[in-house]
């Protein structure tokens, strides 16, 4: 196919605005799938994706429309996956921006539109769900035109559900989106924009051919890493894998590498031919770093090897997942894991529990901190327990947050943001009724329960998105929790100095309720360095004996003791104090929820 007849595009939208439905209709209309094969959300293969209605992995499907080859590169819709969105967008020349006719522009619409503009993509704006009774296509079209520039009348009006207007979308893709540029005669170069792992065929690379062509059986090389392999097969998705003889310039498809080790082929690398190598690789993606961290521990310590295997396997398909072994005296052996954001964490956790049948204990999420040590060196800290006690400065990640709300909720949301150390940036009226609030917020303030709070203060009307704005210095302190003068690593936290007292107090109060009384008084303390900021005492128990024990009571009493004994085996030892794992759980849950 010559370049002029190829179009590579993505569909971008806020969650539930109809991206997947539109993709389904396109597959149907172009007869890529027959009606019989059609099921909702064909592109979302993972069970979890189908259930949550979100897309995790980017995929590329080739369809044919009026003599043109259109490659639809699917993108994840959620904020945590900005990384994957931008990867997908780099493989395209255009994007269909979908907005719900009843909801209008939402926070993710804005974030995704900006990403598309940053990547120099031609945007095809679409208002969807015009069949809904509460639809206001004109208002939505005006909002979208204002966002991306252009005239409201250029915004297409469709119903992906009924199929109305979808053909016009395909026409607009052909007419408005430019064909790919690239040199079919040059030495081949292909950008790896994603990969997947198949246990029989090894690493499958999703590529966008820029120059030249690849053929099956051709020896290839990943330019940055130097990995060499033979292309076992090349082809494209339509929507299932279809082998082809070649992949040519401008096309999107896959290369089966046969590599058994996913780390040998990085997303963002450039593939070239071994026989006719390109002199320069394509510009790669910036390496994204996980920003949200949490400890994952198996509830049953015997499951540790299973957890390790499961993380290894998840990592094969999730380059953004980071993990390293972590040992906690309170929780045993586990892993400190890094995630792009909260949803990413939630999805990894659910996949571990659901697909690998693991029972997990997750510590309160924290963020990556940059710490200037006394020796003048900057180090990154992912675990409060590793934060040096003596530091010259601490920096924490901030995000630029866009919050779109009905104007009546501006007050409550500003109050929430102030509580969370937010810095107001600006306020914008998207329409007479709807407001965009732009704030800078510390990431640490949103990882716990910000989204829940936001939803509850706006009766569910708020939409929220963020992207990272870099590190800023903060008045942060490491708060340690001590039980009977022994620090408990799993409970250490890094908090703003102003919040340290309240957080420490809530935590030791909870510990007092959760730790069973011992033979002696047990102090539970929160401390910054050697300074105790909150203290509670778990009073020694004064009596623990069944009053009555005669001939008929002996068996019952013995069984009670056996149970008591079994309970003790599940206790974690903190110094001289026995603490049930449930107590840690309860305290960690507190961190998770309504601590403020």
């Amino acid at each position: 196919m010559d370049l002029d007849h190829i179009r590579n595009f993505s569909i971008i939208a806020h969650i539930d605005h109809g991206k997947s439905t539109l993709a389904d209709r396109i597959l149907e209309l172009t007869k890529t799938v027959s009606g019989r094969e059609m099921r909702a959300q064909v592109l979302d293969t993972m069970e979890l994706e189908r259930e949550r209605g979100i897309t995790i992995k980017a995929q590329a499907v080739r369809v044919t429309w009026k003599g043109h080859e259109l490659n639809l590169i699917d993108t994840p819709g959620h904020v945590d996956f900005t990384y994957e969105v931008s990867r997908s967008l780099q493989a395209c020349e255009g994007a269909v921006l979908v907005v719900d006719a009843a909801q209008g522009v939402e926070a993710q619409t804005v974030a995704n539109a900006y990403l598309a503009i940053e990547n120099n993509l031609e945007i095809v704006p679409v208002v969807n769900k015009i069949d809904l009774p509460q639809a206001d296509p004109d208002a939505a079209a005006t909002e979208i035109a204002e966002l991306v520039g252009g005239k409201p009348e250029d915004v297409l009006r469709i119903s992906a559900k009924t199929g109305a207007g979808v053909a016009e979308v395909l026409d607009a893709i052909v007419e408005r989106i430019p064909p790919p540029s690239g040199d079919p005669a040059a030495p081949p170069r292909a950008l790896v924009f994603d990969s997947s792992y198949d246990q029989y065929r090894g690493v499958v690379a999703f590529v966008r051919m820029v120059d030249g062509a690849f053929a099956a059986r051709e020896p290839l090389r990943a330019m940055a890493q130097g990995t060499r392999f033979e292309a076992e097969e090349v082809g494209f998705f339509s929507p299932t894998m279809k082998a082809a003889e070649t992949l040519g310039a401008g096309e999107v498809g896959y290369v089966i590498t046969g590599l058994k080790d996913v780390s040998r082929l990085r997303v963002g690398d450039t593939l070239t031919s071994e026989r006719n190598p390109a002199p320069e690789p394509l510009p790669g993606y910036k390496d994204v770093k996980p920003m949200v961290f949490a400890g994952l521990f198996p509830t049953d310590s015997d499951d540790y090897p299973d957890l390790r295997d499961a993380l290894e396997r998840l990592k094969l398909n999730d380059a953004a997942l980071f993990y390293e072994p972590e040992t906690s005296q309170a929780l045993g052996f586990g892993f400190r894991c890094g995630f792009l954001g909260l949803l990413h964490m939630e999805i990894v956790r659910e996949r571990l529990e659901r697909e690998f049948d693991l029972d997990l204990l997750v510590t309160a999420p924290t963020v990556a901190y940059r710490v200037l040590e006394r020796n003048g060196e900057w180090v990154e800290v992912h675990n409060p327990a590793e934060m040096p006690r003596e530091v010259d400065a601490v920096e924490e990640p901030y995000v630029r947050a866009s919050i779109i709300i009905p104007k009546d909720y501006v007050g409550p949301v500003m109050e929430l943001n102030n509580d969370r150390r937010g810095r107001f940036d600006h306020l914008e009226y998207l329409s007479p009724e709807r407001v965009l609030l732009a704030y800078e917020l510390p990431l640490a303030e949103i990882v716990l329960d910000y989204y829940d709070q936001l939803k509850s203060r706006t009766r569910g009307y708020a939409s929220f998105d963020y992207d990272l704005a870099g590190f800023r210095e903060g008045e942060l302190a490491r708060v340690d929790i001590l039980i009977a003068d022994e620090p408990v690593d799993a409970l250490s936290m890094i908090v703003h100095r102003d919040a340290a007292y309240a957080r420490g107090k809530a935590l030791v109060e909870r510990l007092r309720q959760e730790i069973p009384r011992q033979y002696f008084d047990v102090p539970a303390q929160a401390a910054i360095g050697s300074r105790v900021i909150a203290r509670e005492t778990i009073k020694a128990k004064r009596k623990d004996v069944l009053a009555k024990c005669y001939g008929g009571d002996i068996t019952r009493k013995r069984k009670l003791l056996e149970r008591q004994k079994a309970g003790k085996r599940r206790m974690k030892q903190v110094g001289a104090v026995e603490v049930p794992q449930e107590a840690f759980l309860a305290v960690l849950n507190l961190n998770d929820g309504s601590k403020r």
Partner: protein
Amino acid sequence: MRPPLLGSKQLPAFDRSWPGSTAASAKPPRPLSGIASDASVRHLYVHLPFCAHRCGYCDFVTVVGRRSQHAAYVDGLLAELELERELLAPQLETVFLGGGTPTFTEPRELERLLAGLPAAAEVTVEANPETVTPVLAALLRRSGVNRVSLGAQTFRPALLRVLDRVAGPDDVRRAFYHLRDAGFDNISLDLIYGIPGQKPSDLDADIDEALALRPEHLSCYELEAKPGTRFTHAHGEELQRQAEAMEGYFARVVETLVGAGYRWYETANFCRAPAAEGRDLRSRHNLAYWQGRDYLGLGIGAVSTVRGTRWRTTPRLGPYLTALREGQRPLRELEPLPEAVRRAERLMLGLRLDEPLPLAPVAEELDARALSRLERLGLARRTALDGGAAATPGEREGALTLTTRGRLLGDAVTADLLA
């Protein structure tokens, strides 16, 4: 004191395969296999389930009223005794009649039962104050009973009502003097503390009232609100609210009674000190339980432990009577007691006593590190056993005693000590 009854649903299903439990057998049943006919059991418990009414907090096997069945029940007990007589030593040490309310049993039937039971050095009957008349006291006395355990529970009228008790404070005093007048020189009083609404001053007053009667023996129990009882349903929440305030009651009871010259010889039991009395006033029958001796229990719901097997007789009156009328053993739940379990029980029960527990017999079940920790915390003490230079290896292991605090925390301490 209290009848040896097991909480229900704890043991394996009733065993129907016993020799003699099949209806076809005409011969008298043979003794349980594994329990040799070697007559060795020296302690006999007899359960008399009848009560005038059921107290709300009670979870024992009781039968309300049914006066017409008292005679049949005594027939059953005596028949059961005959079936098991081979287990009993020629001379028993103790017999204990518990309930229920043994003294609510028709006097004629009670007398017939006592006449049919083997003699023993200590024969105890539990009595409710309202049932003790001079006539009944005399009946017990002439039937060979030499110890009475009187269920006083409390002397506060309001608290008695909370417990559904029929007797008033004066009934308790009157019953006590009737017994004294009949010649009983070994009387025990039961007290209950931790009753909903009981203030520390109520507790002090109860102990004072009890001490004023100068009983030889006192049993003091914390009220156990067992799940499922009418009482727990009515008072459970209140008890939970009071739990912390009442935590000190046990220590208060111990302190007061020890101060008054009583020996705290078992977790819940006190007796006048031997030095003042010239005789050992501990309950010999109950000591048998705590020292891990074998005992035979007769009657519905009664528990026996005879060399490595424990069993509990059916708690149902009808089937019990039917089986014995036909010369069969009633249905029983069996629980085998392997050596390790018996050692664990020895430890658990032995630590309730004030006497040092020899360590050698229980050493295998003992967590040595836990013991050292408890010693450091001042809850347990290892002592030498007498034996001097000629000490056997067992004696050199020494013995274990819990301190006062250790005894107040006895269950936690025992759970720690069990390996």
